[in-house]
């Protein structure tokens, strides 16, 4: 029996540890997103916690501890891990607020949230060495085989935790539910292995476990309308003039889309209005205009194009099926037959698409505030896009980057310049501080490109009270030479499938030496 129970204990603990790692990232996502930093911080927090727990688990109770003593430590470890995990959802919001800076939730809040996973990981780290020590202390077990079985149970438990969380649990019970489930599992395991059946000991423990499992989940906050495999989706509405309504779709920490319920053609975000102006130049040159949008989000621009007169046949590639569903059902993108959505990864779907009929506009809108898929910025990907564009087509990329200097946008423009004959960066004038939208336009045919020195578009901003207010946004065009002259010390790299250091660039750290040094 013990041959099965010992690996089973490690299996369950490993599964719960992986679930905790995923849960802490997703709990923090509405505050700090899911870029490289939150994931790295969570992985480091969990694994460092496990390291400390493993070392302590090797010495707990002394070198000659008996099996009942080791069982006592195992029970204590599981109970502590369970309690600390159940508290994670309750503490996430408070922790984020406590470590927020003047410009919002930065690295401090990211690390602080990740550290919430450390206490349960320390406690969980006790489990494997304690189980192994119990195996060593059990005379009739063949130790080498048991060692192999315990390692294997740990690996299989990690797979089970990852697969169950990623494919099933996040969509069904959310990140808070995932933390509650893992915490409850550990508490139950802890109660089971308490090395005594004396009522004076076990009754208070069982009572505390039942109370913790019943009561603590009540205090967790849930900011998401819907949690999917990939993101936390929130919607919020702002009334416009008359009876009209403006609905924002927020993915994790950043606004992705703003759709006007009654007027699909009104584009309220400055970058969307500019993108539309540039796209219209390409549509005007086509007899039956077609558009491809990678990263649909709330589908504001695809909806505008599909509802135009004449309608633009618009295909959207969206990775997240639930985002696509909400865009259709709650962002009013279902009303046009000219709009078609394909669920899948942009690169993989594009690869499988025929090169004809071609598109007049390809829009890349899959880049998020703090994270950019590396395989969607490379020269190899740009060639795939260019091969599907018409003779007068344009590839537009919406990039959210640091304003000064925009290292990622400069690198993407440099990359696109190796494939397209005319590449411009559109930046706001006067320049924003902090992070800003940069639209990169890559034209197939410079003779048919829209390249004025500047353009002003109508946009909507929310004032301090959250009320929508009309505001003109002026965009200034910089071709690549002008951009390099404006930021002479910013080096731009050509991004390839082999080397695309996007997180480094997004963090404002150059990936090469400045040209002047």
């Amino acid at each position, binding site marked *: 029996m013990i041959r099965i129970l010992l690996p089973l204990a490690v299996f369950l603990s490993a599964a719960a540890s992986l679930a905790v790692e995923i849960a802490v990232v997703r709990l923090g996502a509405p505050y700090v997103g899911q870029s490289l930093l939150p994931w790295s911080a969570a992985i480091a927090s969990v694994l460092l916690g496990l390291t400390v727990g493993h070392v302590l688990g*090797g010495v707990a109770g002394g070198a000659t501890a008996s099996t009942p003593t080791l069982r006592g430590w195992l029970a204590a470890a599981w109970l502590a891990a369970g309690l600390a995990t159940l508290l994670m959802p309750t503490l996430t919001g408070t922790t984020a607020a406590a470590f927020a800076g003047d410009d919002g939730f930065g690295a401090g809040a990211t690390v602080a949230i990740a550290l919430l996973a450390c206490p349960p990981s320390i406690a969980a780290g006790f489990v494997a060495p304690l189980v192994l020590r119990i195996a060593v202390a059990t005379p009739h077990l063949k130790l080498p085989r048991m060692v192999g079985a315990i390692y294997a149970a740990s690996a299989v438990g990690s797979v089970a935790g990852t697969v169950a969380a990623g494919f099933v649990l996040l969509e069904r019970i959310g990140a808070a539910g995932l933390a509650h489930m893992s915490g409850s599992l550990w508490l139950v395991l802890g109660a089971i292995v308490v090395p005594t059946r004396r009522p004076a000991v076990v009754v208070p423990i069982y009572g505390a476990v039942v109370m913790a499992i019943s009561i603590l989940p009540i205090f967790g906050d849930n900011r998401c309308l819907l949690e999917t495999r990939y993101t936390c989706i929130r919607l919020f509405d702002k009334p416009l003039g008359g009876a009209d309504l403006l609905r924002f779709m927020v993915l994790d920490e950043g606004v992705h889309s703003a759709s006007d319920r009654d007027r699909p053609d009104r584009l309220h975000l400055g970058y969307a209005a500019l993108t539309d102006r540039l796209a219209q130049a390409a549509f005007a040159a086509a007899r039956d205009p077609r558009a491809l949008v990678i990263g649909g989000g709330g589908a504001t621009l695809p909806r505008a194009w599909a509802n135009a007169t004449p309608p633009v046949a618009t295909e959207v590639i969206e990775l997240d099926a639930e985002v696509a569903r909400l865009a259709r059902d709650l962002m009013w993108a279902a009303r046009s037959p000219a709009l078609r959505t394909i669920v899948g990864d942009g690169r993989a779907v594009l*690869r499988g698409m025929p090169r004809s009929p071609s598109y007049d506009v390809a829009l890349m809108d899959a880049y998020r505030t703090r994270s950019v898929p590396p395989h969607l910025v490379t020269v190899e990907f740009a060639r795939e896009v260019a091969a599907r564009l018409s003779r007068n087509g344009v590839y537009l990329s919406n990039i959210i980057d640091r304003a000064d200097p925009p290292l990622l946008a400069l690198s993407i423009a440099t990359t696109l310049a190796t494939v397209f004959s005319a590449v411009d960066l559109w930046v706001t004038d006067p320049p924003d501080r902090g992070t800003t939208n940069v639209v990169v336009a890559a034209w197939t045919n410079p003779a048919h490109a829209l390249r004025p020195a500047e353009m002003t578009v109508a946009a909507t901003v929310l004032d301090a009270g959250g009320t929508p207010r009309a505001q003109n946004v002026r965009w200034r065009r910089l071709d690549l030479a002008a951009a390099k002259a404006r930021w002479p010390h910013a080096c731009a790299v050509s991004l390839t499938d082999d080397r695309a250091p996007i997180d480094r660039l997004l963090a404002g750290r150059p990936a090469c030496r400045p040209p002047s040094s």
Partner: protein
Amino acid sequence: MLPIIIFAEGLTAFCALAFEIAMARVVAPYAGMSTDTWTAIIAAFLLALASGNRTGGRLAARMDLRPMQFAAAAALGLAGMAVAAVPAAIPRWDALVLAGAPTEPLRVVAFAALPCIPAGFFFGLANPLLMTVALAMARRGSVAGLIYGAGAAGSVLGVLGALWWLVDTLGVRGTVLAIAAIGAANAGLIALAAAGRRHMAPA
């Protein structure tokens, strides 16, 4: 000798986790980066690791300590070779499995998963061999904590090193080859240590 075993365990975990991270970037240009690809990579690698663990445990039950160390070194050398083969094999694997229908879920999963299996198995084979050697040499259970701790610390460094440094500076191909080289060096270290200790008690 024991410190070398503990260090080797950490290095093995470093290579395993760094390889897992690098594989996501190897696969992305062909199959994209989605829950399907990530899960296929993690699941295949860890299941291969588990299978290697199980086999390593059975091997350890039948071996003396010195051959056991050579077996661990051989497993890590084979893991390094399996890792090194990935960059050259992937384009051919793509043509064989994925290129015809790059979004078909079964093809995506097969494409992302299978290249992880040989490396995962051989890395997994080494773990119980090293742990058994360490337990026999130390003759106390508490060394298990140190071995596990070294493994977890190596995992942290593998993930962070790959994400923050290796892939950015060496590129994806360079990272994979560097992991292979570290795996081979680890194998050499264990083999040298075993060769230097001729008299060891059986497990």
